């Protein structure tokens, strides 16, 4: 993708207008009333964000500096929890697993969603399009834990339907969940199957917003199907791709239910993710300080990855 074909046509503010100091006029009584009303409307959201997001984040940062086992009073630990975390091979492996999971799961999720969105957006009866849209989105409305329980049965090496079907065509049973190599792939597969519906809907919406005239003009100029997708569809869909990838990556970095139910992090640590480590440290081993330290590191990782995405988006995302 390059930005030479689709010029950035967003209105730009004149530099002078941004830099010149302007004395703000004294707000009238009506303006003050409007501001008060706006504040009242925003208040529930702001209170919600403060109570359920800001306070827990600050709380986690503070707790990461303490030893706390729920039973006794917290004791100040300074950076000891962070030192412990960096010296714990399980934590480091969980970060590696989570990053591997994120890369493959998000790439696969976006690819499948995009291909299916392009296919569904092609020529087909309206009713069939609706059926596909509903079918692809349906797994997303189910709980990840219940899907994982069902998938655990399906992928069971000895009694699962998947291996039974493979057996009918002569394949040996595959240890989907009990071998280190296959387990992560299976967890990714289950996650992507459930999650791609969200990206799919975004892409369908994004494709519908691309003016048909651009495609028609390209066809008149002799562009073929694949070329049209690469030079027109993808650049114009790039803002949607950005949103889908940002949401996808944030969700993937917080994956918990699928590995917890399917493999419980095993075999060994091969599918143990960061959020699983947080859960185990806090609620099974009563090390809330260490769990918070891992949580803070995950928060920093998510912020860094998201910031990097937005930074890169300046080069690769094109707005009409």
């Amino acid at each position, binding site marked *: 993708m390059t930005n030479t074909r689709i010029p950035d046509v967003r209105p730009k503010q004149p530099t002078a207008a941004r830099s010149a*100091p302007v*004395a*703000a006029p004294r707000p009238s009584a009506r303006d003050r009333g409007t501001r008060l009303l706006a504040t009242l409307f925003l208040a529930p959201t702001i209170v919600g964000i403060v109570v359920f997001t800001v306070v827990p984040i600050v709380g986690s940062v503070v707790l990461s500096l303490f030893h706390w*086992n*729920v*039973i006794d009073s917290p004791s100040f630990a300074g950076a000891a929890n962070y030192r412990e975390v960096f010296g714990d091979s399980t934590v480091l492996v969980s970060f590696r697993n989570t990053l591997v999971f994120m890369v493959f799961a998000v790439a696969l999720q976006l690819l499948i969603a995009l291909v299916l969105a392009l296919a569904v957006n092609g020529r087909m009866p309206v009713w069939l399009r609706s059926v596909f849209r509903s079918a692809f989105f349906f797994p997303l409305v189910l709980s990840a834990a219940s899907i994982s329980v069902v998938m*655990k*049965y399906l992928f*069971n*090496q*000895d*009694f699962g339907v998947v291996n*039974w079907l493979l*057996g009918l065509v002569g394949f040996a049973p595959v*240890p989907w*969940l*009990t*071998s*280190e190599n296959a387990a992560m792939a299976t967890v990714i597969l289950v996650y992507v199957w459930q999650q791609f519906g969200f990206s799919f809907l975004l892409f369908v919406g994004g494709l519908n917003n691309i003016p048909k005239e651009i495609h028609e003009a390209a066809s008149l100029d002799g562009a073929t199907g694949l070329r049209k997708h690469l030079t027109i569809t993808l650049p114009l869909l790039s803002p949607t791709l950005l949103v889908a990838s940002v949401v996808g990556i944030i969700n993937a970095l917080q994956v918990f239910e699928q590995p917890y139910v399917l*493999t*419980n*992090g*095993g*075999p*060994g*640590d091969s599918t143990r993710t960061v959020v699983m480590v947080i859960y*185990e440290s806090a*609620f*099974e*081993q*009563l090390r809330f300080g260490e769990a918070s330290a891992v949580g803070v590191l995950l928060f920093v990782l998510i912020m860094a990855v998201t910031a990097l995405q937005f930074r890169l988006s300046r080069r690769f995302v094109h707005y009409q």
Partner: protein
Amino acid sequence: MTDSHLTRRTLLRYGAYGAGAAALAGTAASWDRLTGADIPGRDDGSLVVATLGPAYGPEAIRTLTEGFKRVHPDIKLRINAVQAVDWSDFFAKILTQIAAGTAPDLVYVATEGVQLFAQRLGVPLDRWVKRDAEELREYFADVHPSLVESMMYEGSLYQLPVEFNAADIYLNNQVLKRAGADFPAADWTRDDFTALLRDMKRASGSQFTPYFWTNRLWGGVVPWLFANDTNLLTESKAPGGAWLWDSFYPAAERAGRGGGFRWTTPQADHARVEEAYDYLASLIEEDLCNRPEGGNGQNLIGVFSTGRVGVTPAGGFWAGGLHLAGMKAGGFDTQYFPRWRTQRMQFGAAGYALLRTSKRQEEAWEFIKYAARRDTLMRLFNTNQTTPARRSMLTADRYRETGPDRWQVFYDTLDKFPDTGPIPAPPQVAEVEQVLLKHTGTALASRRAVAPALRRMQSDLEKAMERDV
């Protein structure tokens, strides 16, 4: 941006904001910490008992509350059935309640959590047991001392066991018949066991798993460690406990008893531990058993009852489970775990632990006694969903409908094998269990993987045991 002159009016406004914020901060700082108990209606003066939800359905809860109300009309009782998939999940939820300031008075605790609760949260029952010794004499006479000892910690008793489950072997009779094999004798050996699995495999084909087990602390690798006369952690007895043994048990039964079990030094790299893992790895290699699978064996009932599994370790709880799954009483039977170097078997027990934070300790003790009564347990365990801790409750009549025919095996695992003991569950049990499950998964990838995985297990267990809970 705005007028930089600070007017008197602005100054007054910001002053008022500052005073308001300071007042709010002061008020917040002067308040006691709010807890879940401060929510109106939460603390209604009831004695709150937390039980494992799936084991205590609405009918069981009604039985407990209505029966208790008849005996103690003055004590208000509330059963909090905590929904959890296993004991580890249950403890996590109880600890969350404690963190939220809504700790129950009593918690139903299994062997996995006995020492953790005793060390950090529990109240010893010694003074009440001594006070009500006459009333309890009949209870102790009916309960095997190994179960009682498993509820002791450093010389004190923390729970009265009401149920237990030992890892015995369940065999599918239809599969045995298909293999043309006889039902194994009580003193069968590990080699007999292996030969039986081979016979079953030959007769039942590739889609069949002769031996199925679940990778967990209870009933996973541990029964094989016990059979091979070893354990994951060194096992010894704490001193003390004579006050109880001398009062309630005859000399023959109290011999060798102490103040509870101590599991201290990890020994995962011990030769016998390696031998047990190597044996399981060889069974996997020969396709005689499944690879270690996590979870709680939920899918096992279905595959066992339909003859796709021949043999599995389970406790008395499975008799009720198989019956509910539609298996006829004659469709399966039980036998002791096979002998290797010994025929020592493992069990887990459960009872009610009294929390230090409880303000109703006398009432709680009355509930503990009520919950251990024979008539209460008869009503509570009427579907054979577990093995009652009271020996007298295990009768032919109880197992007539559900099976198995050899129901005596359940309690004889204790009576005929007095060295049968609890699964290793020190206060650091959560981490120990996690390490065990993690490295068992990798150790059994192949026979060559056993030794390196056990060395890593040993190292992780040492770290886990060094930690203060």
